[in-house]
């Protein structure tokens, strides 16, 4: 059982223009930096990207947007990216904005083999248009469908060659659910460890969900909103 690939090129083998790709991360936190940069270099285009956010203009998915490699974005919030807003308002970019909880659940359900489920989020809004409505306990719910992807690309803190992953802090976010939902799931990690080094009792993503794993060359880990207090503050 060896899912370790040599680097980002081997990890992305087979990823082609026109595919549907899930990318983990929340804002710039926990995004697969190495894979995104390589996708820019590869020049694949017409991509459908499923990711909670779309990066910023010069980092993360923003880099793919700048080069018009993305045909459609499926996200919940894109407020930090001017180029995104411009492409969307001009109609260059197809956008499917969906509630963040529905996005997370749709990925999880995709990985868990649940093709559809009911959720209250979005009822009575444009998100609910055309969707089946059913009442449970007197409350309206929408039928939402599961999401899967040709490739799911996630970023973890540590991982082993069985594909077992652990994340650090809130860099976990969408990564575990998306890892479940990829036909091929690629994990890039800060540190590749030997099987057995990760405590089996405390693994966030079981290796079964991961097909390829590699240690990223470097991580910039850019901070979007650096908010601090000074030592004098309570």
């Amino acid at each position, binding site marked *: 059982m060896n899912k370790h690939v040599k680097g980002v090129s081997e990890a992305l083998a087979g990823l082609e223009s026109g595919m549907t790709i899930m990318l983990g991360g929340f804002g710039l936190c926990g995004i697969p930096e190495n894979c995104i940069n390589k996708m820019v270099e590869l020049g694949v285009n017409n991509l459908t990207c499923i990711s909670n956010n779309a990066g910023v203009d010069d980092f993360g998915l923003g880099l793919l947007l700048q080069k018009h490699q993305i045909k459609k974005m499926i996200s919940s919030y894109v407020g930090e990216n001017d180029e995104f807003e411009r492409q969307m308002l001009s109609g260059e970019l197809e956008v499917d904005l969906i509630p*963040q*909880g529905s996005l997370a659940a749709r990925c999880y359900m995709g990985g868990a083999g649940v093709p559809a489920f009911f959720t209250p989020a979005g009822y009575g*809004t444009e998100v609910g248009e055309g969707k089946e409505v059913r009442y449970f306990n007197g409350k309206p719910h929408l039928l939402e469908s599961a999401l899967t992807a040709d490739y799911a690309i996630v970023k973890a803190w540590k991982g082993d060659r069985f594909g077992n992953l652990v994340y650090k*802090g809130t860099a976990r976010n969408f990564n575990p659910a998306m890892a479940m939902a990829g036909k091929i799931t690629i994990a890039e990690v800060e540190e590749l460890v030997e099987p057995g080094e990760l405590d089996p009792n405390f693994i966030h993503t079981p290796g079964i969900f991961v097909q390829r794993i590699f240690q990223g060359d470097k991580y910039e880990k850019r901070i979007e909103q650096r908010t601090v207090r000074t030592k004098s503050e309570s």
Partner: protein
Amino acid sequence: MLDKNGIAQRIAQEMKDGWYVNLGIGIPTLVANYIPEDVNVVFQSENGILGMGPFPYDGEEDADLINAGKQTITALPGACIFDSATSFAMIRGQHIQMTVLGAMEVSDNGDIANWKIPGRMVKGMGGAMDLVASADNIIVAMMHTNKKGHSKLLRQCSLPLTGVSCVKRVVTNLAVLDITDLGFKLIERAPGVSVDEIKNSTEGRLIIEGEIPEMKI
């Protein structure tokens, strides 16, 4: 009249000991600064943390520890990290006792609009649609009027909705109002604000019964 901090301060009075609370971006974030000392609440941020603490000291920021506003934060003792699917399981499953959100418009039946201005601004709904559709106890924190001076408390929202019939209470720079079957019911006036001023700034149906007390801040 209250400023943004005043609104936050008034909302902080709503918190009950032992509650789990989700604070939206903007004025709601400020609420954390005014929780009474004897009230223990745990803040959830929907990107995946319970027990969010204050901003880190300068130099101690961790790119892997942020809140839903993408700000660097800290974790308090007893905090807990989880993934987005679990986070919204908490929200959708009604395990959060209070949600505070900003809004662009609120209607007098409790509809809220806060994510989109057609043709102009489309940031996305983020977690707001899940929060408003799920929470039993939703408080909106906002200014009573927009920059043009038009009321944000309306008979009907003009912008695309975030949720329907979900807001329970609105706290503005002018007043505290509850959503009832008959419209906005005036509960409290901001310090120095008259009932007439509130009437003039409220487009939706307004119910005024008896003497309206001034907020205690």
